[in-house]
Each structure stands twice: as C-alpha cells, then as structure tokens.
C-alpha cells in the first residue's frame, strides 16, 4: 500500500490477485489512496474462499483501520466478521457484491452493480439482437458471482446453456467451438470475463465462419477492439475502478470530516457498444477500465 | 535324533508355487522336527526363499498342504504364520532403517500397557528386553532408540535373528543369515542356531556355504530348479557329496581342479 499520513483504510475483496477484473479494482484503490493521501491496504484470498476471506477481514479489523471496504459475495458467511467490524466502531462500505445484505449488517453504503441485474441486461440486449439460443461461458466454476451472472442472463434471454470451462484460453476456444459445432441452433455467446474467456471465444467464432452474437462481462483492450470493429456486440462495464476508488475516497472523507453520501452508488452496469468502444480501449489497456 | 518316533512340528507336502508363468516350486515336501536343524540348500534361484516364504505365510501355495500338529494349516498372511509359531529371518531382513532398534524388534507384536482406549506401547519393557536379547547375541547397543539404519550389516542381521529367536515359539527359519557376515559374526549366528535347537525349537537354515550347513545341520535337503533332490541325515553324506548335489554335479571337477579344491 502507499503511505499516507494519519488515515488508514483496509480493503478486503474476494477476487484473486491475478484476476484481470480485480486488478482494476485494486488500481482504483491505490489511486484513491494516493489522491486522498491515505494509507490503503488491499487484501484478498488466494482462491474464492469465504473462510480465508473472513480471516482477512478479522486481521484488518484487528489493526483498527479508519475504514473498511469489503465485497460480500456470501452475506451469511461473512456476516459475522463484518458485524464484528461494525461493532468495533469501524465504518464499513461494501462494494461489487452484497447490496442486498449490506444494510442489515450495518454497512454504510454499497458501491457496485448486482451481478444478477447485469446479467439480465446483457440477456435482454442479446435477445433484442435476435438471439434464440445462447451459451453462457463460465470460466471459473464454483465462483458464486459468475453463477449469478449466468442466472441473470437466463432471466433476460431465455434459452441458455452454461458451458463450464477452465481459464485456459486454448480450452475455452476448443470448448466453445465444440459447443457451437454440436448445437447448430446456438447463435449467441456470453462470456463472463473479457480476456480469459471472451477473446478465445471470439477466436473460436472466427474459425467457425458462422454468424454468432457475442458479448462479455468486463473489458479487455482486445475485446473492445472487436466491439469497435463490429465483431462483438458489447462489453458490460461495471466500472469496477470506481468500486475501488469511491469507497476509499468516501471513507477518507468520513475519517477526516465525517462526511458520507446518503445512499448506494450504482457503478454500473454500463453497456459499451460499438460507438463507445474505441475511446475506452486505451484506458482498458492501462488497467483503469 | 530319533525323528521317526517323534512328530514333526511342521510338515509341508508337495508344495507348488507359480508366479504367473514362472513355476518357482514344482512339488516340494519337507518337514522339521522339534530340536533339529534342517538345512535347505541349493543353487541360486532354486526356490529356497520362495519355499520358506510359503512356509511362513508370505506366499500362499498354488498346490500342496501345510500340516502342523496333525492339522491342515492355511496361512493367509505372515501374521497367521507367526501366530502359529513360525518365526522367520528373511533374506532381506524385514527391517525398517529409519525406525529404532526397539521398534523394529517388536514390530507387529508390540507390548502394551494401560487400558483401552489409552493403551500405550510399553517402551520400558520393550527397551529392556531388546537390550538384553541383543546382549545375549553378543551385541551391546549404545541405546535402544538408535535407528536400525545406522547399524552395520552384521548388527542388523543380529537384530533380526534375536527378534525371531525371542518370538520363535516352534519353528525358526533363517534365510541365508550368514552370507554378509564376517567370521566372528558368523560364529555367533551358528552358535545361536545351536543354542536355539537345543532348546527344542525346530530350525530351518538356508545357506550356500556347505561348511556352515555341516557345522549345525541335522538333516540336509537340496532344492534344484523347484524340485527336491533328496534329504540326507547328518553322517549319511560327505561334504563333497553335498557340495556336488548343491551345484547340480556339473563341471565341478574341472573348476575345483583349477582352483585347488578350496571352494
């Protein structure tokens, strides 16, 4: 973390350090730390592990920070740790996931987007493009947020099949190809991560020589380029940079001046389609979007 | 040794043992009387180790029967053999180098104290017995907790023999116990065999060394390619005849000639 003067803010998320999406959140956290001149500490478990995450929250609380930012993918599992933080008098802001459970845990506000809603929007968009049958490519089986995205997608779109893969691009590419080959009715693909799943899926579609609509969660520079070129429909941007930046900024304000906005901040979803794509590419490459 | 009037402690009749297509034993009969040392001799690969492993329950015979006290035995495991009173010193010793002498000595038959479920291994007794049994065999250990892996080959052999002797109720089997030993250690082992035999235990002694066999043997059975060449009593056979039988009688004259008959 960067060194600030008096104020100390801890961030605990459930995303792995080498996950492209979460690295943007972390960049937001660090930028806020610098801008607000506060000391920030960003921590997350090695895998999607609520037990480990709960320990990390406890460890953060133990250091009595002036504010705590958490993501809450499982309110039941993390509830106790968060309540303990609140009980200890630490202001807590949740981000990314957990808006439904946040109030009852004593969390001040939530910055983020509900995965389910975002999936629903993606589904509706792809349906409006004329899709009949879709694949939802899940590159991290067992990660609850990804399940929620697919569930929302099903709600918004209709007939979907979940395609579980690993996060190896060669595997994603081959499996998408196989699925498209097997079921000729599939005309739509939604991937849940732009770089690990979206780009190989694009490659698979290109090799298939078949008209398939594809959209993705999150952004990567290459996928955005495909959107700009009209090869892909959209990226769902939840502006996770804000999910890192804003809570830290709010808590810094709170620690110094007792300020705090009055309600949740929806950071997304923001559908990046062909028109907007080109201007976002550079920022995505820098890890801001 | 008036064998005919006494009953053998163990009798094996027409034992066959196949490993896949390899026929290691092709019908071997053998018996041991109490208080006798029965030497099992034969060429490399004759089937001696396989035979005594069958006797002690490591292998199950493909055909044939094992009789003790008039009952047909069916050893499913070495444990069953041990419980029937057969103690064995295997050619490869069956010692665990990283474990202490005491632990190896008692392996499989650890003494216990205390009450269930808090039964301890009785180390006090175990250590004492180990030390004293080893001392009886002429080895004074520094401490019973020493790992077996740090003992010399001869000492290790002695642990294996002491263990078998201590537990060996009726039959003690020794598979080539002297092959890696020095002169002094060999004498020790042979003296032990003598002592054990005199206490009424039946001993089966495998060796390639005719002289070692003649030093302690009461009867001699020679195996050749999985079959018995016959059994002879002490005094019925000369060392040279025995040697010839063990070598299958081939070309010995020529070789012995060139080397001065000292093999």
């Amino acid at each position: 973390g960067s060194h600030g003067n008096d104020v100390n803010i801890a961030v605990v998320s459930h995303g792995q350090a080498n996950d492209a999406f979460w690295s943007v959140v972390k960049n937001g956290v660090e930028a806020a730390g610098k801008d607000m001149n506060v000391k920030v500490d960003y921590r997350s478990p090695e895998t999607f592990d609520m037990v480990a995450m709960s320990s990390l929250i406890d460890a953060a609380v133990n250091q009595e920070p002036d504010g705590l930012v958490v993501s809450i993918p499982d309110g039941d599992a993390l509830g106790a740790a968060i309540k303990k933080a609140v009980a200890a008098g630490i202001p807590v802001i949740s981000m990314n996931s957990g808006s439904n459970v946040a109030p009852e845990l004593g969390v001040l506000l939530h910055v983020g987007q509900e995965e389910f809603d975002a999936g629903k929007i993606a589904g509706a968009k792809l349906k409006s493009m004329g899709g009949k049958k879709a694949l939802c490519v899940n590159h991290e089986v067992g990660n609850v947020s990804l399940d929620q995205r697919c569930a929302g997608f099903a709600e918004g779109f209709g007939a979907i099949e979940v395609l579980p893969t690993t996060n190896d691009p060669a595997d994603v590419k081959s499996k998408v190809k196989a699925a498209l080959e097997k079921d000729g009715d599939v005309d739509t693909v939604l991937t849940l991560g732009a770089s690990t799943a979206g780009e190989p899926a694009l490659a698979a579609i290109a090799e298939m020589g078949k008209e398939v609509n594809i959209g993705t969660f999150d952004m990567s520079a290459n996928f955005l380029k495909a959107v700009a070129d009209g090869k892909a429909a959209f990226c769902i941007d939840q502006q996770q940079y804000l999910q890192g930046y804003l809570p830290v900024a709010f808590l810094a304000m709170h620690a110094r001046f007792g300020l705090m906005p009055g309600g949740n901040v929806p950071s997304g979803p923001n559908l990046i389609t062909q028109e907007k794509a080109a201007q976002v590419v550079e920022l995505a490459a820098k890890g801001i979007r | 040794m008036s064998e005919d009037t006494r009953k053998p402690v163990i009798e094996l009749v027409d034992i066959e043992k196949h490993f896949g297509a390899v026929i290691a034993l092709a019908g071997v009969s053998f018996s041991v009387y109490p208080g006798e040392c029965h030497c099992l001799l034969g060429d490399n690969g004759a089937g001696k180790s396989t035979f005594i492993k069958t006797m002690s329950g490591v292998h199950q015979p493909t055909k044939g029967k094992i009789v003790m006290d008039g009952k047909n035995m069916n050893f499913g495991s070495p444990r069953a053999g041990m419980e029937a009173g057969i103690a064995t010193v295997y050619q490869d010793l069956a010692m665990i180098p990283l474990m202490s002498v005491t632990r190896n000595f008692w392996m499989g038959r650890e003494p216990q104290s205390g009450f269930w479920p808090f039964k301890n291994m009785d180390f006090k007794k175990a250590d004492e017995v180990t030390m004293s049994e080893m001392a009886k065999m002429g080895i004074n250990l520094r401490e019973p907790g020493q790992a077996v892996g740090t003992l010399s080959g001869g000492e290790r052999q002695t642990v294996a023999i002491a263990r078998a002797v201590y537990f060996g109720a009726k039959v003690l089997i020794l598979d080539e116990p002297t092959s890696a030993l020095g002169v002094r250690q060999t004498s020790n082992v042979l003296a032990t065999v003598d002592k054990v035999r005199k206490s009424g235990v039946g001993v089966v002694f495998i060796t390639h060394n005719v002289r070692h066999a003649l030093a302690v043997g009461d009867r001699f059975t020679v195996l050749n390619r999985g079959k018995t060449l016959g059994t002879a009593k002490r005094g019925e056979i000369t060392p040279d005849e025995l040697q010839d039988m063990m070598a299958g009688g081939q070309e010995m004259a020529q070789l012995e000639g060139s080397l001065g008959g000292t093999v």
Partner: protein
Amino acid sequence: MSADKPMADERLAKVSLTKSLLQRPEVGAVVGLIAVILFFTVYADSRMFSLSGIMNFMEPAAQLGILAIAAALLMVGGEFDLSIGSMIAFAGIALGIPLVLWGWPLSLSILFAFGVAVITGAINGFIVLRSGLPSFIVTLAFLFILRGLTLVSLKEATGTTQLRGVKEAAGDSWLVEMFSGDAFEGAFTWLANMGWIDTFKNGTPKVQGIPVEIIWFVVLALAASWLLTRTRFGNWIFAAGGDPIAARNVGVPVNRVKIILFIFTAMAATLVATITVLEFGTADASRGLLKEFHAIIAAVIGGCLLTGGYGSAIGAMVGAVIFGMVQIGITYTNINLDWFQVFMGAILLIAVVLNNWVRNKAMSAH
C-alpha cells in the same frame, strides 16, 4: 565380550543431549517458526502478536492444522491424499443438504457427513491398495470426482453453487457450540472487565474466547502425537510407511493401517467442513480449494518425508502455524498483495531447505 564396548566408542564422537534433541523430526519446523516470528516481529504491525492478532492467525492455522496432522499421519504411513480439499466441500454439503433440505436434526446430519467421510476414505484406500497404484494419482482422481459431485449435488439441490440457511436449520444445540464459535467466553469477558485484555472502543473484549477450532487443533495434535510415538498403532504407521513389505512380513496389518489412515484423513476434512459450515452458515462448491497442497506443505515443513516412514504430528502442527502466520501475517505488513505468492513460495523454500539442513547437521553430528 568386554572388547565390544570400547569398539563402539573408539570410532565415534560423543552424542550430546542437545544433539540428540536436534534429531527429532520437528526440530527444523521449530527453527523455521522462530525465524518466521522474528521476521514478522521486525516487519509487521505489532498488533499481529497481540492476543487478538494471535487468535486471528491461529484460526486459519488451526483449520489447516487439523488437515495437516491427518495428512502427516498418512504421509508417515507412506501415502498421500490430494482429495482433502475437495473432501471439505463434499463433506460440507453432506452435512448441509440433510440439515437444510431434508430437515434432519443436526446430530444426524453430522453423523451422516462423517459416515460419508468414512466411506470416501475407505474407497480411496481400497483402490490404492487393491490396484497398487500410487495414492498420488488415485486421490488426484478423487480431487476431481469429489469436487464435481459437490457441484452437481449443489446444482441439483439448490440451483446455485451455494447452500444457505445452515445456521437457522442448526438452531442452538450444544453441538453447534462444539463446532463453532468461541470457548471460554465467560473467562474472556471477565478478563476484559478486569482490564487485562484489550477491548474495542465499545468495551467488548477484542477476543471473546478461544475459537473452538484452535482447541480441536491442539487436542488433535496431542492425540495424534501420542498415537504416533507412544502406541502400537503408531509403530505400525511408521512400519507401513517405512517398508510395507517388510512390515507385512513381520505381521503388521499394513492394509488395515493404511485404510484407517485414509479414513482418518477424510474425517479430518469433514471436521474442518463441519466447523466452517456451522461457523459461516453456508456450504459452497469452492470450499477447500488448494487445501490439499497447503496441508502437504505444512506436513513437509513439519518434517515429514514425502517418501513415508518419517515425520511427526507436532511438526505438522508447527508447520500449520507457520503457514497460518505467513498467510495472515502479510496483511500486517506493508508488502503489496501482488507479492504474496512470491513471498509464500520463498518462505516455503527457505523453510524446507532450513529444515533439511538442520536435520542433516543433526544426523551427521550423531
């Protein structure tokens, strides 16, 4: 005869008491623990070693430790179990589904989960022993199978990869207290009132008790250590791992010993599952990911040989504490999270190299 005695002395240096202590398997781990503590004393926030800080890193250490102790016993017995991590998830739903969805009482559900563990462990062991395949590869298959079955069952039962509502279904039975929450809460409140331990601003003690898993962990470590070093069964474990053929030949029931160890490992995973499910109120498909490696690492840091026949339960306990300290300790330092894995790997490497070096020194000084 008397000539034998001086012979041994003549060619050997004397063995000092210190040196014979140094030959215990866990000594390397203890040295490693001291090194890690020193490191964090210098580089971490001092609150890491406050009472609440210690409880904080001991909690994950205890959960890992329960696994590591079982893994150590299994490793001493000459086998591996890579399915521990998946077993945690699997046992979690074996407890959660009867409890939440079938409406079974907690006691029966726990029994059911442990029953599943016994069967799974036995299957693991049975396949390893019958096929003669290395346990590495058999349990690797079960790593996939159990994780997959967990996912399938959860999807089938709930439609998601998560099962909620365990706390509500479990209610308030004493069993819940046995497996979750803190012990000795009264004592800690009293200590807080006396001002002897830290409190938060609102007066509640920072540490409300000793988390039960720590108690399970310590009790298990002592029991396993007693089992391994002081009992007949312990001798059989060493023998089965040191040389199974030799052990079998002198009458050790090697297969029985190994199957019991596999079952014990699966049960340890189930214990951890029970603790976490009751503590956190949910079961999910990704519980226990990578835990098999962490357990093996802790056992190896604790002095177990991968080849079997050598190791200690106390060592595994120390190894787990080291692991927990490193994992949580980094949050008390200023080290950037991105460096976590490098840090982890380096500590692991240093720990095992040090461990090995200490052992070799101790052995050759013999």
